[in-house]
């Protein structure tokens, strides 16, 4: 089975788990992580003694409060895991880098069952400290100075990814005639799907008028173009494909991963601002599979900011480049042709930082979506996480591939 073809096809997602997800849950990141991990292990039909690999994004000690989640050593110790392979880190093709690494680890025989998790407690952290941008504290001559990449943007108040990603939207308005009324449909589609997801953060209906009336964050992005900080942990077990016949749940086969970045790796110097490295990640993924964009039955495309989903739609070939505006407008085609962000995405279901997209793709392939289940038994799911110069994507299939 899967003796040839891309090595990631030796990996499957054998189990999935997710903690409670909400605003200011008041629980520690480790507490939430243990919940998600134990669920995923049980779902995979395994015992914690079977887990011999552990990976996470981004690892402790990076980002603003509540961003990083517990480190892999903390989780290893909390679960008393005996590991043959472990990994945690920020640099790489987006949040899914930890999953990609796990796939390669099982393909290489470094581990058989890798637990992969991503945990955020940004809602609780912001409740305690107020929502701040980088460098937002202090004032006057006491403000610390910065070196490195941020030193080129902070003096100008370009402190948040929202600012940099607003450039993408503005540039697309210039090149492709994108309108706010089109962009709105990423948020509206997410909310429509969140209405039938019991775990979503925001479930009350949203109209185009609501969207157009809400406050601006950084033009042309308004509040509803920005995802909802939350507390929550998502975990998956990545196992060797040989385990698939023994797994109690439907396994999701990894068909191909997309990891490339061929432009300059920064928010301001990348050659094509309308695509960033989604262009390269998607191209590298399609080069590794016989599947085509028309085969995708459900798409879970990162919406940390709404415009990123539109970039992914185009770069993954789910609609032509430059035409995502008309494609999403009205919300019909992203409900029927390419069911999109079926849990509500990060805009409405919470900023689980890419791993929510992966979890939902597995839910849909397994047919466990309940009221939000995509009809017809989806067999191929596209998952994308990140945006700008930090982007990765993958294809999952319900049946055996490769």
């Amino acid at each position, binding site marked *: 089975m899967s003796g040839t073809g891309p090595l990631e096809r030796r990996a499957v997602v054998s189990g999935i788990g997710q903690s409670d997800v909400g605003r200011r849950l008041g629980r520690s990141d480790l507490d939430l992580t243990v919940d998600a991990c134990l669920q995923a292990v049980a779902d995979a039909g395994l015992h914690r003694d079977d887990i011999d690999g552990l990976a996470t994004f981004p690892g402790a000690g990076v980002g603003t409060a509540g961003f990083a989640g517990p480190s892999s050593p903390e989780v290893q110790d909390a679960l008393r895991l005996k590991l043959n392979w472990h990994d945690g880190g920020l640099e790489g093709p987006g949040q899914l880098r930890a999953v990609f690494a796990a796939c390669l680890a099982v393909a290489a025989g470094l581990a058989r069952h890798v637990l992969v998790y991503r945990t955020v407690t940004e809602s609780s952290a912001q409740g305690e400290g107020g929502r*701040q*941008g*980088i*460098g*937002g504290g*202090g*004032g*006057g*001559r006491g*403000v*610390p*100075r*910065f*070196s490195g*990449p941020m*030193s*080129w*943007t*902070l*003096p*100008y*108040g*370009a*402190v*948040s990814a*929202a*600012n940099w990603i*607003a*450039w*993408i939207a*503005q*540039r697309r*308005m*210039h090149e492709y005639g994108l309108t706010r009324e089109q962009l709105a449909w990423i948020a509206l589609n997410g909310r429509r799907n969140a209405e039938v997801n019991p775990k979503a953060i925001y479930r009350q209906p949203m109209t185009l008028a609501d969207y157009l009336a809400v*406050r*601006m*964050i*950084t*033009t*042309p*992005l308004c509040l509803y173009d920005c995802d909802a900080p939350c507390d929550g942990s998502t975990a998956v077990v990545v196992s060797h494909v040989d385990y698939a016949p023994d797994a109690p749940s439907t396994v999701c086969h990894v068909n191909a991963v997309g990891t490339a970045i061929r432009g*300059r790796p920064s928010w*301001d*110097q990348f*050659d094509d*601002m309308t695509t960033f490295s989604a262009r390269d990640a998607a191209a590298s993924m399609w080069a590794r599979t016989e599947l085509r964009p028309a085969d995708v039955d459900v798409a879970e495309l990162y919406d940390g900011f709404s415009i990123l989903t539109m970039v992914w739609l185009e770069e993954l070939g789910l609609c032509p480049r430059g035409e995502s505006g008309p494609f999403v407008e009205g919300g019909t085609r992203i409900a029927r042709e390419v069911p999109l962000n079926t849990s509500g995405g990060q805009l409405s279901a919470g900023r689980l930082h890419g791993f929510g997209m992966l979890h939902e793709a597995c839910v849909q392939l397994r047919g466990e979506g309940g009221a939000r289940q995509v009809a017809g038994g989806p067999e191929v799911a596209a998952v994308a996480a990140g945006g700008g110069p930090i982007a990765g994507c993958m294809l999952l299939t319900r049946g055996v591939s490769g």
Partner: protein
Amino acid sequence: MSAAPARGPSIRVLPRLDDATRFFWTSGADGRLRFLRCGGCHHYVHPPVPRCPYCLDGPLAPEVVSGRGVVHSFTVNYHQWIPGSEPYAIGLVTIEEQDDVRLTTNLVDCPFEDLRVGMAVEVTFEQAEDVWLPLFRPAGAGS
């Protein structure tokens, strides 16, 4: 709000000057903008790196540029990431000399509603302590 939009955030978080970047951040002391340029292949290089990333060979040295550029993209920031800030325009400007050298900057002396992708701009400097921050305004605004 006053008629003139803010020129930037309420607090300028300043760069730490080091041997690689001091020339850039102090360039505006004489009113001129400079970038590293390769003496071998003549490419401009930004941000500063130890060796020319194009030819991996020639020596790099600061060189004056025209100070003219084009707005590649922009955003008007309303959220108070930095408390006390009035809305300000964050631009991404491509310099006239080379289309893969861009600066994050503030766009000033221009009503927000007149900002456009593709508009011609020119550098103007704002001194903060020992740093001269390159800002950009509509071309011809300073003449």
